[in-house]
């Protein structure tokens, strides 16, 4: 009696794992079919598939077959033609080959009109992920906020009791100690940032989903927001520190000034690269391990790599939280440095 639920648990875990694995595999299958035909190009094809998987796309491929692909809308702007909107289905013929549509050409996720790249506002896979992420965030957080209004003065329950410790953690462990007494002003931004990155990271781990927070455009935008907020809220003390570092001899100031000025930009730059690299690297590792099965075409390797993938997936769950934490932590640290009052030790 005691062993039975345990076994059923592990079976269900295995089944879940098989499902996840299956979904991942299905994503590769067209490319791997291709690989089987041209065995000499097998290895480059795998790396192409992996890179394609962590990149943005104008179609959202779930599985092979007629209904397996979601063709997303393309929105382009050119000075000649103005705003144009059509389905990305038009870039593919019935045999799934790339074709030119209406003069527009899709090449490596970039749309060209003639030879010139167009301004592309398409709802790509990652934009869809962005919408989904935002929608989930809104639904979850507004329902939690409603729960606070509904049972005010009572102990938190349900989703509320799951979100509350995270909010408190961000507020009391990240924002308050790093920004100081003025933290209330920045708390909404930092909470939004934290949950956006956290939910984005977790959604990105779902099979078939896009790599939203591992996309450099997304991390860059977030880093730019942090950059703007930091420098807009920077007080005299902060700028004095950068432009005329106190307590440093004059000749050294000549060296320190450019370093400090570069520092303004390296801070958000490091934010951008860290999140992008951590999430994308995680995805590449997962996909590479899965690809081993297809490279060696052996079910023993398949079992081995699946175990590894399970292990790495668990690490990725951890990384999802850590990266959200780190991004918020450094953002509050930078804001904290910008709003810090002078503290008389003259360094």
């Amino acid at each position, binding site marked *: 009696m005691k062993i039975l639920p345990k076994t059923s648990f592990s079976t269900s875990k295995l089944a879940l794992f098989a499902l996840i694995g299956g979904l991942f595999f299905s994503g590769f299958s067209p490319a791997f079919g291709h690989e089987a035909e041209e065995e000499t190009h097998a290895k480059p094809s795998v790396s192409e598939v992996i890179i394609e998987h962590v990149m943005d796309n104008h179609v959202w491929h779930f599985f092979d077959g007629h209904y397996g692909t979601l063709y997303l809308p393309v929105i382009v702007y050119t000075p000649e033609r103005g705003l144009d909107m059509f389905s990305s289905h038009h870039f593919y013929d019935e045999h799934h080959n790339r074709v030119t549509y209406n003069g527009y050409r899709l090449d490596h996720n970039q749309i060209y009109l003639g030879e010139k790249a167009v301004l592309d506002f398409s709802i790509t896979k990652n934009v869809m992920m*962005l919408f989904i992420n935002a929608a989930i965030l809104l639904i979850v957080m507004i329902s939690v906020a409603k729960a606070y209004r509904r049972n005010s003065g009572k102990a938190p329950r349900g989703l509320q009791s799951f979100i509350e410790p995270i909010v408190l953690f961000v507020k009391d462990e990240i924002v308050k100690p790093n920004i100081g007494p003025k933290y209330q002003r920045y708390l909404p931004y930092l909470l*939004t940032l934290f949950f956006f990155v956290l939910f984005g990271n977790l959604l990105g781990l779902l099979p078939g989903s896009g790599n939203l927070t591992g996309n450099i*455009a997304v991390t860059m935008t977030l880093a730019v927001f942090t950059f703007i907020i930091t420098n807009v809220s920077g007080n005299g003390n902060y700028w004095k520190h950068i432009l005329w570092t106190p307590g440093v001899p004059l000749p050294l100031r000549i060296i320190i000034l450019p370093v400090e000025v570069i520092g303004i930009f390296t801070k958000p730059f490091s934010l951008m690269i860290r999140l992008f690299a951590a999430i994308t690297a995680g995805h590449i590792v997962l996909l590479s391990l899965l690809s081993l099965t297809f490279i060696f075409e052996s079910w023993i390797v398949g079992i081995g790599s699946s175990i590894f993938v399970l292990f790495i997936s668990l690490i990725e769950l951890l990384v999802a939280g850590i990266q959200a934490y780190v991004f918020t932590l450094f953002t509050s640290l930078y804001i904290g440095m910008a709003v810090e009052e002078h503290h008389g030790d003259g360094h």
Partner: protein
Amino acid sequence: MELLTPGSGLIFWQVVVFLALFFLLSKLAWKPIISSLNEREASIQSALDSAEKAKTEMASLKADNEKLFKEAREERDKILREARDAANRMHDEAQVAAKKNADKIIEDAKAVINTEKQAALRDVRSLVAKFSLEVAEKVIRKNLTSDAAQQDLAQGFVKDIKLN
């Protein structure tokens, strides 16, 4: 390299969506959540403060009680002591008074006895005198010339004595 070049479309959508998300969440989620969290924090703090206050009040109350109790005990002891003293005093006084009374009674009784004795002695003396007189009278009255008569008389006296 493609991986490292941010797409313009995604940047545009990210800015739009993130800003919208920020404003919506700030208004609809963070504001009520943070304010209720702060409220709860304040209420917990005030509850803790009032508990602390109650504790100190209890302590001072206890100290007061202790003091009152001690005072009451002292009062009781004092009263008891005084009562015992009073009782003792009264007892002593009563004893002294009783002794005095008794002495007086004895004295009186002695005096009465003395007077009675004196009176009795006086009576006896007068009686003896009377008897002597009577004897003398009887002796005189009888004829005491003859020996026989004297003997009779003596005999008579003896008889009387024997009868006594």
